[in-house]
């Protein structure tokens, strides 16, 4: 007997096809197919603070939120604009210091310093990265990696902005609930805002820059301008996280330029699935708590951490969300060749 050769065939589910057009509103089933995943995410994020066992874990949520903003920015730049940015630490540091300075020297409350630091930090980061914008790939990544290291050394060497002590006595948040819900709402708005943006016409231009930048120039659009806009958005998200971090810790210092802020968002994007935007956010919600759990192992922590990352890259290199979306939208079956 010959062995029957079979292969896997993937087909879109009927309900996926039906929900693509205006017919999505035709029945409750179709509507819930579209709304349910988003609702689960939003509601899940909103009730998360109540599920935490103690204050320490409530505080971890805030950290996760900061990393989620960075991961969103990284995913947006890498998969929709084609700029691989290692500038997480740079954005956090600039935003954090800006908020701390505004708070300490001008006496502004967090209500004003956070938006101002977001905008100001985004402007500063974009201006500093402007000369690097014609670069692509690893060259752009190296420049973004250089800035946090350089700024840290400048602050230490010149002993400005509090030197190694940092800026102490920054105003904090009234209580842990405001602290948590502020960052969760910011993450939700940033996530859905970015998803909306990349499907707008300007988002298509961003994707065009990634796909074929010469063609964008031939279309009469300046690639430097659109790369600058994209970096502005991503660095704005990072600076927002930094400003929030300064107020959360009531302190701003050189550890805000730590490379963790650059590296962890990338790991989260790998685990969550690049190009999905929601994946990196979920990746942060997975990685940061894992890293907290592993604290018990002391210095072995980094070993376990690496094992988890390696396992993901080897067995699920597409990322969790890409896998989940495929399972949700498509079914598989075996067919004879």
């Amino acid at each position, binding site marked *: 007997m010959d062995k029957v050769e079979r292969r896997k065939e993937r087909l879109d589910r009927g309900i996926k096809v039906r929900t693509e057009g205006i017919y999505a509103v035709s029945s409750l089933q179709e509507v819930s197919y579209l709304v349910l995943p988003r609702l689960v995410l939003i509601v899940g994020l909103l009730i998360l603070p109540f599920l935490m066992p103690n204050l320490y874990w409530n505080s971890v949520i805030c950290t996760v939120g900061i990393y989620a903003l960075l991961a969103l920015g990284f995913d947006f730049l890498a998969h929709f604009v084609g700029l691989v940015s290692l500038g997480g630490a740079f954005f956090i540091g600039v935003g954090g210091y800006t908020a701390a300075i505004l708070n300490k020297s001008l006496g502004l409350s967090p209500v004003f310093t956070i938006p101002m630091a977001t905008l100001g930090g985004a402007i500063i980061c974009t201006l500093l990265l402007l000369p690097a914008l014609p670069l692509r790939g690893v060259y752009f990544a190296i420049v973004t990696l250089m800035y946090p290291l350089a700024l840290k050394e400048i602050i230490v060497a010149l002993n400005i902005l509090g030197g190694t002590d940092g800026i102490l006595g920054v105003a904090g948040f009234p209580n842990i609930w405001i602290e948590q819900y502020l960052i969760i709402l910011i993450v939700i708005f940033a996530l859905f805002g970015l998803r909306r943006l990349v499907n707008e*016409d300007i988002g298509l231009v961003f994707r065009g820059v990634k796909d074929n930048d010469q063609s964008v120039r031939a279309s009469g659009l300046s690639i430097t301008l659109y790369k600058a806009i994209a970096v502005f958005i991503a660095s704005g998200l990072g600076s927002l996280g930094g400003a929030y971090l300064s107020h959360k810790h009531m302190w701003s210092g050189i550890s805000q330029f730590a490379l963790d802020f650059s590296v962890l968002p990338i790991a989260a994007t790998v685990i969550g699935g690049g190009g999905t935007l929601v994946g990196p956010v979920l990746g942060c919600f997975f990685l940061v708590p894992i890293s907290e759990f592993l604290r018990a192992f002391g210095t072995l922590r980094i070993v376990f951490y690496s094992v988890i990352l390696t396992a993901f890259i080897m067995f699920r290199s597409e990322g969790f969300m890409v896998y989940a979306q495929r399972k949700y939208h498509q079914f598989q079956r075996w067919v004879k060749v």
Partner: protein
Amino acid sequence: MRGDRILQVTEVSKSFGGVQALLNVSFAVHKGEVFGIIGPNGSGKTTLINCITGFIKMDSGKVLYRDKDISNKDPNKIANLGLTRTFQIMRPYYSLPAYKNLVIPLFSPRARKAGGWRGGGKLGDRETVSIDILEEIGFERDSFVPYKLASSLPTGYLKRLELARCLALRPDIILCDEVFSGLSMSEIASMVPLIEKLQMDGITLVMIEHRLRELFRVANRVMVMNFGEKLTEGIPEDVMNDDKVKQAYLGSEKLLDYTFEG
């Protein structure tokens, strides 16, 4: 037929290291004509287009477009003046459907000025306008072709998409870099009327081409290049009877005879 000079190229030179890609090339294109540029491989035709449209900075020379100096300006600024180009090796946005490919040129300042803030003005949003343009260029409106990913389209459609990208900018001139190359005979046959239609719409065309028979059907004047220099210029019949051109294309007549005899 012949109008004012819309494009005037004067003494353009460009060298890449030791290779002289272009040497003092000058020509003028009149409004509304189809101007062909032909020449053997490596004669500098594509480099010439790259220099005119700003994708490569030229070493010396001058390009006047509507009596305005556009030498070495940024490509996007030149495109916004209405001087557009296609690429020989097609450059669509492979990850986007064909009609979304056109949203990007429709987003440019020139197209926005012409079409209002939604891109199409009264005509609708940018996606509606892009489907209209695609239909004009030969994508069947009610088929699935305009909605397919650019990566799954055959060469014939991608060449049309290149032209469509130029049309989205409402151009005055299109510099076509080998629109016929890589196409089957039937695809070429359907492309020629398209070129004629563009000319009738008042668009000036500069065409680099290797398919001489099809080019001579549409071209009013032809320029021949060889080794980065301009050999001659004139109406197609005269040019092809020129000895210098024959030499460039076929090697010298003598050598040819000798080969046959030997």
